[in-house]
């Protein structure tokens, strides 16, 4: 089965349609019914980051979401138009103390904890690409 791909402008109004699509494609790919919400939360954290941090909410810039079902797993790639290299170990540990009450900074932590595997790279064109792997049971 070929990859399903969605590209949306960096505008918050497109988040909900994307979330709905991700769950439906996840279902077709074989993700369990009660895991679909977690899948879409994890992916949408990355999509929102792409829109906000990668593309600065410029509606002329797009975020791409590619989903592919492979044996035993679904691979999701989220790309934006920036070229970001994250700090080592980003989102591995929850904030502590003062930082616990920050307004933001929980997206990657959540995506990492919900998915089995998260990886940051640059696409061949040098763009920020976050790869998420969702295991199928």
């Amino acid at each position, binding site marked *: 089965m070929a990859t399903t791909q969605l590209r949306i402008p960096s505008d*918050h*109004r497109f*988040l*909900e349609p994307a*979330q709905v699509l991700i769950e439906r494609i996840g279902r077709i790919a074989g993700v369990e019914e009660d895991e679909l*919400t*977690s899948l*879409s*939360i994890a992916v*949408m*954290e990355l999509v*929102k980051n792409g829109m906000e941090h990668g593309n600065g909410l410029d509606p002329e810039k797009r975020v791409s979401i590619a989903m592919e079902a492979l044996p035993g797993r679904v691979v999701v790639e989220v790309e934006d138009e920036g070229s970001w290299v994250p700090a080592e170990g980003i989102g591995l540990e*929850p*904030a*502590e103390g003062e930082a*616990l*009450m*920050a*307004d*933001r900074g*929980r*997206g990657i*932590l*959540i995506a990492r*904890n*919900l998915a089995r595997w998260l990886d940051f790279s640059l696409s061949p064109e040098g763009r920020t690409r976050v790869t998420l792997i969702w295991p199928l049971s």
Partner: protein
Amino acid sequence: MKIAEDLFDDIAVIRLSGKVIGGPELVEVKEAFQSQVNHDRRNVLLDLGGVTWMDSSGLGVIVSGHTTISRAGGTMKILNATKKIHELFIITKLITVFETYTDEKEALESFQA
């Protein structure tokens, strides 16, 4: 997303429902918290029972509401977080900050204690 408000004596119950997904609607939630402070209401119970989808942006606005209300000398507690949302509170360790309830009566009474 929808926001509804109930008042029980001096306790404001803010009920969120639907998808809390980001953008302008988060500003609305923020304003709902601010409005409690403006009306001098210090006891706020946030009912998440109807929330079908939420991510870190939703958590962020809840944390900022908690801070706003605490600074004004009040308390915000959480009611009926679904299993998925509860999981987000655990992952982020926010569970250590918020008192959470699954029974509305019990939650309301806890403000009296």
